[in-house]
């Protein structure tokens, strides 16, 4: 079941590579589109067959691989990874769809995108630390080339920066993984086999810090973030969509899966610092975004701010806030993908992304009114206007974090106000006002260019109005992530007298409302 998600892209990449030399670009494009469509449909089918009430990893697959190392090919999916797998399929499809039809070196391009998708899917599915690490590194290589070959003017600098940063992140993560397994004398690298509670708290903290910095680069957290704006500005539109929509989620996914889940004890020790760090990230991202003049940079910095909320919610670690992280990952994936697509259309038609030059693009006859309207929707979604997905995810996070970290939550909420400031300035400057002479002859915008953003807009509004549809997949998992003791207690009623009070005990072991 699950291997399909990993191997369809790989096989399709091979197929694109083996296509005869004479075959045209559109054939490769179609192969990639069909393969991605298949993967996406498959992930939706998985969601249908997924048992939302089971907190364990489902559809598990196990193949022994290198036993002495403790490495096995073990896949599984739970409520945390399922939504991410679905947006991975969806956004990769959209990225391929919105790639230039006459792109340079199409064969390599489609192969790399397909490999990227397979690598990310594998990382989300892996149930073995080493396997996760392999996929995590695998995804890095195609992305490096995608930025370095099809990027903008400073693509070499941006791609190298990205590679170095992410490689460093990989090293830190690998070190932490090896440390965890060797120090705790776990029999293998399987997620279930590891129990860090046996370790002294000092070594737990060291290992957890390694992990947090490692994934913090990927998320990215301030001050480990400077690769992101550069990578976004230099990458082409479809790659930006993937980078913001899917790849950043690997960082937050890792933080939740390995930070929070493997180190429940030391996590609570570090949580207050993490929450403060999150506030710094949120406000820093928002303030820096206000001062940007490049539309893409603005959206990139907004990503930093939005990912900061996830760290805050992860630090608070209440059932609601963890659910909020899943929600925020998906909503940020969809909304930032939509914004990047629209910025891409504007750039393609006008040749610039500078908000001090652009103006009046909402002009009904010679501008791009529908792109403008979609931009307003995307911007409002990102700023957290109710009725769209950004709002409910932020509300879940704030409501979930407030009891634990009231001050930090309030400071992060200032971030949503600031988000409105810069995104509104973006729309106001570029779309409102008078269309200058130089843009009076813009090329026509085709429906095929609007369609991906249009679809995402519908999805964002739909899930904003009907959030139940997403919550039901993740709720069981996110609740169980926090209270393994309670889950054990209900399964094995040895501590029978305590089971009744177990949830209350767990509640009180966390820092509670200080008000």
């Amino acid at each position, binding site marked *: 079941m699950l291997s399909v998600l990993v191997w369809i892209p790989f096989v399709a990449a091979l197929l694109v590579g083996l296509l005869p030399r004479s075959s045209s670009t559109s054939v490769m494009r179609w192969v990639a589109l069909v393969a991605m469509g298949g993967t996406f449909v498959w992930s939706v089918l998985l969601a249908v067959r997924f048992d939302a009430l089971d907190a364990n990893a489902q559809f598990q697959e196990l193949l022994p691989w290198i036993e002495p190392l403790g490495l096995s090919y073990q896949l599984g999916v739970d409520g945390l990874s399922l939504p991410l797998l679905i947006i991975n399929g969806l956004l990769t499809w959209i990225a391929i769809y919105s790639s230039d039809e006459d792109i340079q070196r199409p064969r390599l391009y489609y192969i790399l995108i397909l490999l990227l998708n397979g690598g990310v899917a594998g990382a989300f599915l892996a149930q073995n630390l080493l396997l996760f690490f392999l996929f995590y590194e695998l995804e890095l290589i195609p992305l490096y080339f995608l930025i370095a070959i099809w990027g903008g003017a400073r693509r070499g600098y941006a791609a190298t*920066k990205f590679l*170095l940063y992410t490689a460093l992140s990989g090293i830190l993560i690998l070190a932490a993984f090896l440390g965890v397994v060797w120090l705790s004398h776990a029999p293998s690298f399987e997620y279930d086999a590891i129990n860090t509670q046996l370790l002294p708290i000092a070594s737990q903290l060291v290992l957890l810090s390694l992990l947090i910095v490692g994934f913090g680069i990927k998320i990215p957290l*301030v*001050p480990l*973030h*400077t690769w992101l704006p550069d990578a976004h500005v230099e990458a082409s539109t479809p790659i930006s969509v993937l980078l913001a929509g899917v790849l950043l989620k690997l960082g937050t996914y890792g933080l939740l899966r390995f930070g929070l889940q493997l180190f429940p004890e030391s996590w609570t020790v570090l949580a207050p610092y993490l929450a403060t760090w999150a506030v710094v990230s949120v406000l*820093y991202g928002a*303030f*820096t*975004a*206000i*001062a940007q003049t490049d539309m893409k940079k603005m959206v990139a910095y907004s990503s930093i701010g939005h990912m900061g909320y996830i760290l805050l919610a992860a630090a608070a670690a*209440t*059932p*609601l806030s963890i*659910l909020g992280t899943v929600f925020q990952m998906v909503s940020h994936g969809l909304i930032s993908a939509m914004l990047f697509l629209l910025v891409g259309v504007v750039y393609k038609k006008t040749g610039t992304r500078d908000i001090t030059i652009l103006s*009046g693009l*909402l*002009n*009904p006859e010679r501008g791009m*009114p*529908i792109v403008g*309207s979609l931009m*307003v929707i995307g911007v409002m979604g990102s*700023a957290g*206007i*109710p*009725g769209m997905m950004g*709002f409910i995810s932020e*509300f*879940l996070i*704030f*409501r*979930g974090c*407030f*009891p634990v970290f*009231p001050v930090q*939550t*309030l400071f992060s*909420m*200032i971030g*949503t*106000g*600031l988000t*409105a*400031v810069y995104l*509104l*300035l973006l729309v*106001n400057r570029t*779309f*409102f*006002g*008078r269309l200058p002479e130089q843009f009076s002859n813009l090329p026509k915008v085709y429906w095929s260019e609007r369609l991906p953003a249009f679809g995402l807009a519908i999805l964002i509004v739909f899930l904003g109005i009907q*959030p*139940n549809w997403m*919550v039901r997949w993740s*709720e069981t998992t*996110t*609740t169980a992530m926090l209270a393994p003791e309670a889950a054990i207690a209900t399964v094995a009623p040895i501590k029978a007298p305590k089971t009744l009070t177990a949830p209350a005990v767990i509640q009180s072991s966390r820092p509670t409302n200080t*008000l």
Partner: protein
Amino acid sequence: MQELLLEASWLIPLYGLVGAVLTLPWSTGYIRRTGPRPAAYFNLLMTIAALVHGAIAFRASLSLAPDPIVIHWFKAADLDLSFALDISPVSLGAAELVTGLSILAQFFSLGYMEKDWALARFFALMGFFEGAMTGLALSDSLFLSYALLEMLTLSTYLLVGFWYAQPLVVTAARDAFLTKRVGDVLLLMGVVALATLSGTLNFQELYDWAETATLTPTVSTLLGLALISGPIGKCAQFPLHMWLDEAMEGPNPASILRNSVVVACGAYILIKLQPILILSPTASIALVVLGTMTAIGASLVAIAQIDIKRALSHSTSAYLGIVFIAVGMQWTNVALMVLFAHAIAKALLFMSTGSIIVTTSTQDITEMGGLWSRMPATTTAFVTGASGLIGLLPLGGFWSMREGINAFWYDDVWLVGVLLIVNALTAFNLTRVFRLVFLGSPKVKTRRAPEVPWTMAVPMVSLTIITLLVPAILNRLYLLPDWAYMNQSAVVLLMLSGLIGFLAGALARFSGVWTRSVQMPFKFLQDMLAYDFYVDQLYRVTVIWLVNLVSQFSAWFDRYIVDGVVNLVGLASIFSGESLKYSVSGQSQLYLLTILLGVSFLGVWLTYPMWNALLNY
């Protein structure tokens, strides 16, 4: 049937939204052959349906007590977001007021916006506007109300920015959104805190909670201040009042709604929040202080405006200030009555203004004059609206003001003074505008001024009649006091204050030198009021400057410090590599020796314990 419609009251807000969705083919330009009119008709039809539905439900609600409607929207972990709807005569009456004024405004805009190419988009936004407002009227959940307030913020932004190609509109739309957003974010903080503290967001349960809640003074003060800041932004109260004045750059039919019912929505939330605000005395004091400041300040500022819409919009702030005072003093019935009377009278005044603008193509009252004989219906509307607004017996404004004076008569005499001052200043301002616009000799732009077409005249005349009927409506709702028990001196004082304002306005000189005095002190005063006490300048050198500074600094820090360190590390490693390469000779024997030495060193180091053991053996 009645009962069924009452049960289905939750549908009322959806009519407007459906209308907005139905306009999409025209507003996106998909259907061009028919012109944009069908979109407008669809919207009107949906609004009429909402009105009829609401009317039947309202009648039914007077006799029947329906089951409370609770919509279970979202449930996750320990959070249960279910929306309670308040189906009561008050809420349905508020919804009726909104839909009624919405119909009139939409009808009016058929004429007003006739030549606008984006008529369909305008109607889509109006439908959205109406849906959000009726929803707000019916909502009995703080969460839902908050969400709808944000929707109103969004639609205000889009409606103010309707003519987005004009520079003033661009800044006006931006300021409207951001100012309201400041209030909204603070309100969201309050909502989140309240949800955590009380565990619920439905008003009825919050009221129960508030009765027994024990909070530390700091928490309750912060909570109260956060909760009132949303309405402060929405109702254009000091210090978040600048947007309403600027928003007058938008189309007039939207201004009709904005100055009557949209601002009232903010106040409506405030009234709903009032039982919770009791927890914080500071918040109540803040309401009274801010309300007083705005009521008197805005009344003064209105006098110095020469833009006809701005002169009226500042008086909107002033009346909402009175509402704030009333809520702060816990007289919610006074607040509701002021809102009701003000909404109808102000809507009428703005309709009349709209006809003047569409006929004369100007908003500057110094360019007008002598319209009374040319536009009789508009003149009647203006006079009726003005009389309905100030405390003139027997119209609505009088009864609402009297209610207020009655409430404050014994304990808070100074607030009676505030009411009388606002009344006098408003009377003065309206008389001033009336004289400049309708009396005097015709000027260039008012010489050829035919009465407006029927699409605008019909709603205007209907609203004139409704304004005249307000006392009758109040009577039907048993809101009028018995004549025998009335405080005679209050009545006299109120009438007197209006009379003073009227006489001052009638006798003062506005033409010629007085429009721009050469006397320094008077000029200074005039400028200060005309520029709204320079509050926008104050913002520019404080909040905006600060945000700008911080963002510039963080961008600089990001570019030169954070990124600079990274690039420095990169540079250092390249440099060291470049310089180290000169140390190699190229002899492979040397390389081999180095490798051998290195490997053996590593081997010795790793196996050191073994050697150690061997040596000791």
